[in-house]
């Protein structure tokens, strides 16, 4: 089978799930005939019609709330945020209504909220965000953020089948830059399991989304230039975190670098560090270090964006320090 892009993999998952389950439908701004701002839903309107691919007004509160209502009644809505940055507008609806529905009212709310996320694309402060931390912090939500085309498809299928609300972050830098050959058959990647992207023995890089690729590039350089064997763990699911995989790599290499594109303070790296520290303290030969964005709204000019966001060089620098600890 031919390789398809990360973006096509998501579309394929949506298509297959809509085919499989008549309760699955799509809701979002400009996702119908236009196919969405990034064309993720391209062709689905033509195939499934206006009752299953529904264009909405510019109303993130209503889109998320309506998805929840339909989900209570047994449907399986998949909502697009035109850019994930606008999920902030639905923050109350997601954290107060959706996340608590099962717990406080025993209401199933099987829905997916997906959208183009992340930077490195000169999108400026409102088209580049990585808002996962606030949602990982919210009990009742699940969060995934794939780094490969295979996982993008497999996790989307799992997200749609999950009986709770799953936030599905798609990295727009990866949309058309990476490709993968889809496994045959009903390719579902279970939520909650990390992926060992590269095996190594000297130190571990734990990361997710676009920085998985930066970590892999750094690992290759460290191998060649320093002879260091770097393990790279791609988390894939951010809530619930795969503690077993995180602890296994920490206990194996004794040196851990956590990398993410999100800003530093209050980003996920803190949580991961705390968990490793609690569970693997005796195994650590060095502090867990973090390579993250600076605590700054993401600026637009290439030189500025590149300064704020973590780069391959930063991972190399940090890994060397860790290895030398």
């Amino acid at each position, binding site marked *: 089978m031919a390789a398809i892009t990360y973006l096509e993999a998501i579309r394929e998952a949506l298509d297959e799930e809509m085919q499989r389950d008549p309760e699955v*439908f799509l809701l979002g701004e400009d996702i119908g005939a236009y196919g969405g701002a990034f064309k993720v839903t391209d062709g689905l309107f033509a195939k499934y019609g206006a*009752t299953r691919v*529904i264009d*909405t*007004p510019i*109303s*993130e*509160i*209503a*889109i*998320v*709330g*309506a*998805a*929840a*209502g*339909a*989900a*209570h*009644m*047994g*449907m399986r*809505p998949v909502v697009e945020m035109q850019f994930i940055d606008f999920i902030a507008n639905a923050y*109350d*609806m997601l954290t*107060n*209504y959706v996340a*608590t529905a*099962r*717990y*406080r*009212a*025993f*209401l*199933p709310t099987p829905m997916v909220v997906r959208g183009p996320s992340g930077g490195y694309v000169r999108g400026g402060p409102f088209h580049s965000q990585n808002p996962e931390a606030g949602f990982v912090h919210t*009990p*009742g939500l*699940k969060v995934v953020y794939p780094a490969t085309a295979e996982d993008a498809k497999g996790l989307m299928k799992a997200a749609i089948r*999950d*009986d*709770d609300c799953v936030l599905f972050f798609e990295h727009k830098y990866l949309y058309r830059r990476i490709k993968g050959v889809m496994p045959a058959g009903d390719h579902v990647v279970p939520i909650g399991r990390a992926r060992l992207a590269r095996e190594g023995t000297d130190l571990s890089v734990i990361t997710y989304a676009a920085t998985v690729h930066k970590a892999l590039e750094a690992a290759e350089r460290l191998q060649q230039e320093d002879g260091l064997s770097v393990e790279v763990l791609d988390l894939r699911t951010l809530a*619930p975190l795969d503690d077993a995989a995180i602890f296994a790599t920490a206990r194996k290499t004794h040196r851990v670098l956590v990398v993410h594109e999100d800003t530093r303070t209050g980003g996920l790296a803190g949580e991961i560090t705390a968990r490793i520290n609690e569970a693997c303290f005796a195994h650590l030969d060095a502090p867990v270090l973090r390579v993250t964005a600076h605590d700054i709204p993401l600026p637009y000019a290439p030189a500025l964006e590149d300064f704020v966001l973590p780069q391959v060089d930063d991972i190399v620098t940090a890994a060397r320090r860790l290895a030398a600890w």
Partner: protein
Amino acid sequence: MSQRRRRAGDGPAAQHLGEVLPLARKLELYYWMRLTRTLEERLVALYRQTKVVGGLFRSLGQEADAVGSCYALEPRDVMSPLIRNLGAMLVKGATPVEVLKQYMARGDSPTRGRELNIHFGDVGPAGATRGFLGQISPLGDMVPVMAGVTMSFKLRGEDRVGLVYVGDGATSTGAFHEGINFAAVNRLPLVVVIENNGYAYSTPTHRQTAAKQLVDKAIGYGVQGEQVDGNDVLAVYDVTKRAVDRARRGEGVSLLEFITYRRKGHAEHDDQSYVPPGEIETWAEQNDPLDRFTRVLLDREKVPAAELAALDVRVQREVDAATDLAEAAPLPAPHDALVGVYADPPAERPLWFRAGADTSRLGRERAEGWGTFDAAPGAR
């Protein structure tokens, strides 16, 4: 498009659907209104005995609007109440014992002690559920959710209608706006009721909106609008039933404004110092919905006073019996807190420093029937 008074859209010869109700059904309306009031009075007594956990919210003087409107729905329809819609919930099948257990945070209350007061519901397939949705506190949020509920009806071709209540205050929220607009554009079978009771907490309606009347918002959403005397239970029924019928016929959203009055404070603790002197008394004396409807039944419908008195006694007995049951109900077990944040995993594990937590029962905690408390509608 916005209609200032009822029925303008239905032609001049249209019947008053409230007035033509058979007497037996009118007596049912009386029963629900009386039950609402008596149950709340019982809650006040329990509150004073500090048996209510948290605040107590009254709908005194608004019973007609809640009861009359919800009475226009079929059992398969779905209604989303707010804090002043106890009457609507009772009509939809919520039982006094459920309400009492909720307020007392009992372990077998509808939310098992997780949520407050009347924040509980029972929704899902027609027939299997009573059709009311548990509200959350952030105001306005239920409008988008009900847009989604009714979207499911439309997408599946189900013959079901939704009705959502908001207060005058909640009309100022972004959620209200986005939700009703979304429903209007999609011509969903949804009735949006604004209960204009004059206040949002301490804020009078003219500090909430500069509109002359809230029903004036209808035209801006392209929906049918009607305003009605919210303390006239038959008029409320009439206007709501027409809106429900329109929704059922596929004619989309209606926005109804009920003019009523909140005679008690926002909650029991509120001293209403902000209310102009005499205002409450005037409404109590001249415009109590139960008094008004009693007079209709006695004077126009010629119901013997003894028949109403007998209903009052029946209500009193039911509330007494429910109180006994609720007071005897168990408190929740602490570890019950761990169950059911997600479908998978079915339970959280206690944090390590809770060495003493009994987790042995967690496995079987998530029984198959783990849904809404399974008091059948008949159990009232």
